[in-house]
Every structure is written in structure tokens, then in C-alpha cells.
């Protein structure tokens, strides 16, 4: 899932400015699960904005709507009415949702209410951790299912750096330090008697499959809808 966190209210208010009609758009998928931008958060944020505007003596009409997924056109099309009425659309979807809204409604002023953090999962209640950096060429088969790109602070592909200590990464200190990804990889493969996998040298990665190759796109010809034959 995509993990996000709400921006500070002051920043959100600055982004909203003195708009009279504000539409808060939540998303029912990832950001609902990480308690950052679902229907509940949209409601709370809406109330906070109304209260703040009232106290400033500039009452604004704030309404909320939550779609099942902000990153799909069909769900966005369903909220055309409220979007077109709003002076500012405050999306509390992830960065993809914000952009989808902005693209679907070219005239709307769309601003983000969240900071999109990473792709990850809840490790325990109230704690989310990064798991994948979408490098575009998954190595997990070599590393016991533990990602050295997203989870090693230096993206090392050939084993732990010298700073790995007692299971913790050299970055960060004490209990707040992340686990050393390579300690985890080693333990896992040792337990499975598969250490030979990391005895081989992993050559320098071809980062073209990652963001370094430019914005990426996946095209599946088999899934493309036939283009209508437009003549003249």
C-alpha cells in the first residue's frame, strides 16, 4: 500500500487560502487503511477547516466527499458536480490521487493535504514501514524476500556495510534505528541454508528500469481497448 501522512493544518490552510468553497476529497483505498485520508479523516479535516475559517471571521463552505479510489478515472467522474462548484479541491489522496484529480478536472485548483511517504505496510498498530522502492526489476528472489533497495540505507546489493551492528542499521540510533536489511537477509538465508545466493556477486544494477530511466509506463497490448476508427 501507499503510506501517507497528513500535512500540518497550518500548511493545509495556507494551500487552501481564502477560498469560499472548499471540497475535501478523501480516498477509500491505501490512505484509508493508513488513517491519513479516508472518509473519517476527510470529515475531521473538513470540521477543522470550518472552525478555523469561522474563527478568522471568513466563513467558508467546506464539504467532503470520499471516492473509492482517487487514482481511477471512473471514480473521479462520479464527483464532477462538487468538484466544479469548488474554488479549491483539497485532495487527501496520495500524490497519485492529487494528480489524477488535477488531470481529470483541468480547470480545478487541486492542492494536496497529505505528504505521500512510501510504499509499505503496517508493521504493527500505528507503525508503517517502507518495503519497496519500485526499482522495476525485482531482486527479492536473491535476497530471501527482503528488499536491499528499499530497506538498506545505502541500497547495497552485496552484503552489509561496516556499520551494521547488533541487527541495526548505522543510520538512526537506538531503538529508533531501522533494522539492517542485510542482517535480515543473512539470517533468513542462513536459516534456509541458501547463503550461496549472496555469495555470488550481484553486478551493478541497471537503473533504467527505475526512476532513473525517466517516468515509467507499463503497456499491455493485450489489454488495450480497440481504438475507434476515426475518419475525418
Amino acid at each position, binding site marked *: 500500500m501507499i503510506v501517507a501522512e497528513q500535512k500540518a493544518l497550518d500548511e493545509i490552510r495556507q494551500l487552501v487560502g481564502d477560498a469560499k468553497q472548499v471540497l475535501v476529497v478523501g480516498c477509500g483505498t491505501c490512505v484509508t487503511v493508513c488513517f491519513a485520508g479516508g472518509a473519517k479523516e476527510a470529515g475531521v479535516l473538513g470540521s477543522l477547516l470550518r472552525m478555523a475559517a469561522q474563527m478568522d471571521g471568513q466563513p467558508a463552505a467546506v464539504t467532503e466527499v470520499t471516492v473509492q479510489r482517487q487514482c481511477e478515472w471512473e471514480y473521479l467522474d462520479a464527483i464532477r458536480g462538487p468538484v466544479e462548484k469548488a474554488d479549491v479541491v483539497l485532495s487527501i489522496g496520495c500524490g497519485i490521487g492529487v494528480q489524477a484529480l488535477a488531470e481529470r478536472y483541468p480547470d480545478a485548483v487541486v492542492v494536496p493535504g497529505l505528504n505521500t511517504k512510501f510504499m509499505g505496510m503496517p508493521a504493527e498498530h500505528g507503525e508503517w514501514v517502507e518495503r519497496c522502492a519500485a526499482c522495476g526489476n525485482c531482486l527479492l528472489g536473491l535476497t530471501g524476500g527482503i528488499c536491499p533497495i528499499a530497506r538498506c540505507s*545505502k541500497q547495497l546489493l552485496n*552484503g552489509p556495510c*561496516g556499520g551494521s551492528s547488533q541487527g541495526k542499521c548505522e543510520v538512526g540510533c537506538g531503538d529508533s534505528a531501522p533494522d539492517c536489511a542485510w542482517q535480515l537477509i543473512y539470517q533468513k538465508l542462513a536459516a534456509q541454508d541458501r547463503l550461496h545466493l549472496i*555469495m555470488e556477486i550481484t553486478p551493478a544494477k541497471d537503473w533504467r528500469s527505475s526512476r532513473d530511466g525517466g517516468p515509467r509506463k507499463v503497456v499491455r497490448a493485450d489489454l488495450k481497448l480497440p481504438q475507434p476508427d476515426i475518419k475525418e
Partner: protein
Amino acid sequence: MNDSDGALSNLQKVLKAGHFAVTTELGPPKNADAEAVRHKARLLRGCADAVNITDNQTAIVRMSSIAAGVLAWQEGLEPVIQMTCRDRNRLAMQSDLLGAYALGMRNILCLSGDHQTFGNHPQAKNVHDMDSLQLVQMVVGLRDHNRFQCGEEIKGQSPRFFVGAAENPFGDPFDWRPYRLAKKAKAGADFIQTQLVFNVPRFRQFMTKVVELGVHRQLRILAGVGPLKSPAAARYMRDQVPGMDVPDAIVERMEAAGQGIADKKARAAAYKEEGIRICVETIAQMREIEGVAGIHLMAIEWEEAVSVITERAGLLPRPTFETPAVVSESA
């Protein structure tokens, strides 16, 4: 590396001849003062076979290791250019390797680099396009295959470095460290410098495994040693530096050295003396360990200690090679 001896680095000649090698370190200044480098270089002259020039050590901006290396070279030292993967991608690293070689540099030490959050620009974006092992492969490829990392042939002079890497025998997972060293040998590293050794028994344990794997025959291992300046420095290394192993006994020895000395200056001197003594003793122990081909003496910001330690450890004078080195069996 199959060069005629004339093209070999001094460090390579020393190791090839089977001498117990000595390398040390020079940290470039946090400014553009050439004299600062020259001054430190003069303090180290004659004490070591080669001198590491650190690359933005602990992620703090300093004069470039190649530039400082050239200055040190002009003062009569043979530099080992440290190169970290933190700040440069493969394009920048290769272009620097070509430049360093063109300027006369002959040794490279390939490192991942301390994370930038430790340094003075924690806001920086790190690179890590490659890791240290892949960097070793790349430098070896430039030399042995005349090819850039992308596979393209180098037309004309290729950089022909003596290639080093680092290893921390005390990092975790401890059991994996000898294998990681083996991996560096497989990547083509010619020599290894280790993290500072204070826990000698643990280092011995590491070396036993290394010898068992036969890695010491594939590359030359220089054990990292260095003088402690004070009990505070010892405690700091023990408690705060990730991957460092300073046994309590060493900390206590440092503390005891100052006991009963009221005068602050005299106490500081006693601490330093004890630090040097421990270092000299450690060197003697390193010489007894199978597979250890030399020491890497780290006394950053205490360059004066290097001549004292090497002298007392009986490592001076360093071998010189007017004529081609004698090829010994072990090299």
C-alpha cells in the same frame, strides 16, 4: 595484475616483495588550503608505504581526495585515493578514475561511504548507484579488460590501479564477514584495509576463518590499528561508533593511565602515551597473525603519532625500491 614492476605502485611492490606493509591516513582539510595538506604530508613522509587520502570522511565536505592526493604526492608520499559510492554515480567515478590516474595516482580504495546523515550535509541526496564491491569490479575492469563499466572499450591509456577495499571484521553479522571478504577477493580486490582492531581475540577469530577460506592468498590484508587519545575517545568509539569493537579492558587501561596525575596537561600526555603503547602492542600482535600482510595505521588529526608508533613498532625505515622489487614466493 600483470604489470612489469616499473608500473607498480610502491605499496604493491612492498607487498609483492613480502615486506610487512604500512599504510596510514591523511585527512584533507575543510578548506582549500594546499599548505594544510603539504604540512600533514611532511609529517608522514618516510613512515608508510602509502597514505590513504580520505574522501569526504564521515560525510563531511573536505578537499577532494584526488586533489589532496596529488598535493601529498608532490611532497613525496604515495597516495591511496579513497573513493566512496555515496557521492558519485558510475559516470563521475570513472571520469575521476581516469583523471586520478592521469595525475599519477596508482592506488584506489573502494568504499560504500558513511551515510550522509552523519555529516554536515544531512539534507543531501545520496547516490549509491553502485556498492563498494561493484566499484572494485569496475576499477578492475578498467585495468584488466580495458573496458568501461558499460562494456565499451577504452581506446588509449587505461587507468591501471592497485585496487583496495575495506572490511570491518567487527561488523555484524560476524559470521558473514570472512565470506564478504571472499566476495571482495572474487570481485578482484588486491588488498584490504580493516576497521580498527582493538579486540584482538575477535580479530584472530575472523582471520582464522579467512585463512581457512584461503582468502589471504587471493589478496593482501592490512589490519587497521590506531592510537587512542584519551579515555573519552575510547568510550566514544565503544559506545557511539556503529560497528566498532573497543573492549572494556582497553577503556579501563586508558582510564588507569591518568590516575593520580593532577596536572591536566600531564594527564593528557599520559593518556596519549598509553594510547600509543596499546597501539604498538597491537601491531606486534598483528605481526603474529597468519594472513596479516601489514597494518593500516589511522591517526587522523594526530599525524605526529605516526612516526612515533612506526618507529617504536620497529617498522622503520620503510623499504625503498631503486631497482625492481625482489619477487618472493608468497607474493
